[in-house]
């Protein structure tokens, strides 16, 4: 015994005598696996079924744990962290209600293709299925709202499962992956395997596209007369290199470029080749160019119904190229002529190479005519508004926010509704990973926790949650989290006292019968901020806006709520009513025959 001990001490001074350093408890394996996966921050909330993991967290210093106030907040914070860094976000929640509260965040991450790992506690394996305290069928509930999920019953498979989960979350089309961890597995002793040793996953999606397809695509582009780039979140998910390549290729061709809500920032928005966002609340020129183009180059977008409008009238005379990493996105709703399965960076790289090798040039004369046509559409100045009188227009507040923050290292998150669309229209994103918004699921309450995730990853940056007064109340409890970690997030509320987008639809579709869309009892947001331990500011007149923005930027050690009292009657334009074509866009209140805009079948659509 004596000898053996001496030997072990020599070999591994830190380890306790005669113990294999790879032997540890399940909870320790979890922490070790997270560290080896490069995790530095996790968002979570403790509970009975995850206490061993929290105990292991207590004994280490590599991972910072951010205590949220609701598990939905943890999921959105992990999303914000992931989207602003390009890394995998991690949340840790308990069994039962902990897991069910995270479901909205998981679904949000699934629809927006955000890589996050959700660790959930579970009742001990022998109690599974017994309706034990805080038991829920977590893998069953989350099967349709995760990219994949696992229930780990064997402590010796724990490390390999966690490594595979990270691989699945970040590979191919990214998405949320959940790992359900019974409490007895967290206590059991097992062997840790580092990522290099763990068995390689068979999940290896194609990222490099088929060259022949790319050649056909580039050939079609070179022959085009009225082309347009239609780019989406796939470019951002493919990493900053993809955005650089996109910028290079757009400038190389001189083609116009538009982007989905999810793709904003992949191409610099202030560039003259950029036509603004497209879709239901996109710019007039972007939507008409989509409608009238002869070749559409879709890179990492998915022909979402918010973009296409009525399918039979969607870009009726174009040949369509669709680059997507997910084969199921291709020909799902819109039939395309040249499908390319691959990630945006590899495909763009190949496209540029082929364009150069073959000495292609855009057809100068037709392209110039196309740009003239676009310039005509741009003259409509579809985002115009009038800041007159003593009431702040929401657009004005956002324009001032844009102007006064343009030299700062700025990240924007949003809630969901009119303010979100105005933010997409009036703010400018010149770089990827700067814009975090709930696009696919449209989750009110996303913005504040997402901003917390962003600020944790970028402590010195300016992080602003552009919010509505209704959305913000859905996760307002996260103010306490921001206070606890001294995070100077700015909650910039465009307060019109209405659920603005609901009100806008009721006005156009339901005879202005504003059923339940007015918040009769709103809190005093300034006092609310102060009650939480943050700073509260209010702008009531246009001349207040610059002052409150300047003041909010002075706060560096706690959250700020900026209550901007805006025009309650303002609607978000342009708008393509549901069920209409891109060329049937409504430009402003002058054009709408209220209550009559959407007739017949269109009214049944979302």
């Amino acid at each position, binding site marked *: 015994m004596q000898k053996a001990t001496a030997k072990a001490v020599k070999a591994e001074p830190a380890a306790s005598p005669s113990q294999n350093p790879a032997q540890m408890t399940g909870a320790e394996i979890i922490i070790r696996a997270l560290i080896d996966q490069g995790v530095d921050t996790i968002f979570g909330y403790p509970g009975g079924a995850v206490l061993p993991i929290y105990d292991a967290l207590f004994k280490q210093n590599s991972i910072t744990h951010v205590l949220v106030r609701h598990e939905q907040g943890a999921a959105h914070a992990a999303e914000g962290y992931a989207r602003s860094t390009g890394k995998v976000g991690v949340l840790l929640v308990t069994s039962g209600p902990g897991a069910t509260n995270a479901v909205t965040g998981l679904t949000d991450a699934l629809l927006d293709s955000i890589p996050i790992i959700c660790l959930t506690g579970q009742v001990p394996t022998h109690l599974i299925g017994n309706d034990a305290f805080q038991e829920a069928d977590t893998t069953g509930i989350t099967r349709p709202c995760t990219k994949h999920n696992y229930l780990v019953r064997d402590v010796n498979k724990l490390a390999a499962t966690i490594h595979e989960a990270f691989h699945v979350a970040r590979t191919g089309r990214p998405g949320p992956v959940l790992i359900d961890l019974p409490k007895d597995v967290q206590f059991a002793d097992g062997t840790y395997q580092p990522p290099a040793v763990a068995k390689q996953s068979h999940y290896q999606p194609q990222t490099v596209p088929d060259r022949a397809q790319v050649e056909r695509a580039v050939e079609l582009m070179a022959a085009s007369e009225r082309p347009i780039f239609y780019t989406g979140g796939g470019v951002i998910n493919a990493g900053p290199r993809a955005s650089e390549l996109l910028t290079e290729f757009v400038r190389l061709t001189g083609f116009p470029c538009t982007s989905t809500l999810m793709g904003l920032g992949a191409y610099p928005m202030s560039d003259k080749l950029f036509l603004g966002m497209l879709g239901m609340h996109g710019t007039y020129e972007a939507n008409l160019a989509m409608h009238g183009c002869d070749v559409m180059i879709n890179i990492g977008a998915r022909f979402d*119904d918010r973009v296409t409008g009525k399918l039979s009238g969607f870009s009726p005379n174009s040949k369509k190229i669709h680059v997507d990493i997910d*084969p199921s996105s291709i020909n*799902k709703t819109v039939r395309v002529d040249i499908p390319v399965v691959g990630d945006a960076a590899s495909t763009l790289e190949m496209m540029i190479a082929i364009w150069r090798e073959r000495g292609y040039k855009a057809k100068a004369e037709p392209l110039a005519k196309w740009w003239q046509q676009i310039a005509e559409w741009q003259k409509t100045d579809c985002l115009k508004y009038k800041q007159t009188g003593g009431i702040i227009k929401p657009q004005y507040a956002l324009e001032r926010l844009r102007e006064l923050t343009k030299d700062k290292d700025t990240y924007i998150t949003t809630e969901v509704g009119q303010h979100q669309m105005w933010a997409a229209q009036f703010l400018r994103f010149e770089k990827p990973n700067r814009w975090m918004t709930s696009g696919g699921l449209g989750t009110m309450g996303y913005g504040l926790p997402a901003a917390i995730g962003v600020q944790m990853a970028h402590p010195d940056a300016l992080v602003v949650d552009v919010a509505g007064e209704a959305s913000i109340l859905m996760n307002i409890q996260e103010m306490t989290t921001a206070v606890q970690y001294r995070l100077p997030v700015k909650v910039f509320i465009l307060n019109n006292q209405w659920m603005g987008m609901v009100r806008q639809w009721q006005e156009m579709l339901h005879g202005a019968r504003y059923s339940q869309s007015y918040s009769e009892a709103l809190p005093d947001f300034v006092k609310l901020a102060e009650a939480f331990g943050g700073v509260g500011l209010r702008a009531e007149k246009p001349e207040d806006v610059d002052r409150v923005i300047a003041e909010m930027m002075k706060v560096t050690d706690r959250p700020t709520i900026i209550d901007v009292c805006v025009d309650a009657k303002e609607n978000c334009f342009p708008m393509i009513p549901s069920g209409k074509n891109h060329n049937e866009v409504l430009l402003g209140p002058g054009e709408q025959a209220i209550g009559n805009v959407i007739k017949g079948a269109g009214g049944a659509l*979302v």
Partner: protein
Amino acid sequence: MSPNTGNGSVYEEGTVEAPKRNCLAVLVDNEPGVLARVVGLFSGRGYNIESLTVDEVDHKTHLSRITIVTSGPPMIIKQIEAQLGRLIPVRQVVNLTVQGKFVEGCLAYIKLIGNFDQRDAAKQIARRLGARIVDTTDTTIMFEMTEATHKIEEMIDALRPHGKLEVARTGSVAMASGEAVLELPGAERKTA
């Protein structure tokens, strides 16, 4: 749930192409929840399942083979294949109907409860249609039949007038003709 026969758009009603019956063979890792993933995909996305059979076909690698008969217009069927391919434990998806010639059959047990004459008539039908007698009692007779689906339908229809019936059937299993083998991708990678 009503089958999704449209083109997947929330803005279009009706269908562009006529739905067609397709037989898919799917190789999956036999792990807990895999069947729920496949079935949940079909119900969640509004696809139609006419029949589904599954069993482990390789005990060493724990691979199961699922045969799914579904129907829909070609665009939806392609979408079903792509969506199946996206599931992590799904290793291979082949559309046998599109791929070429294949054989398809199912197993049925059919019990008839009836008097002597009825059971005698049933025996003659069984002989004609190629069903085996696997169990008899004083009042019942049970047949086993391994055949194409429409032959089993024919058998059931023929027996129905002769007594009370109980039917248990497996749904289709199918295999491609020729040297095509559904196996783990070796050199070629799964594209989902």
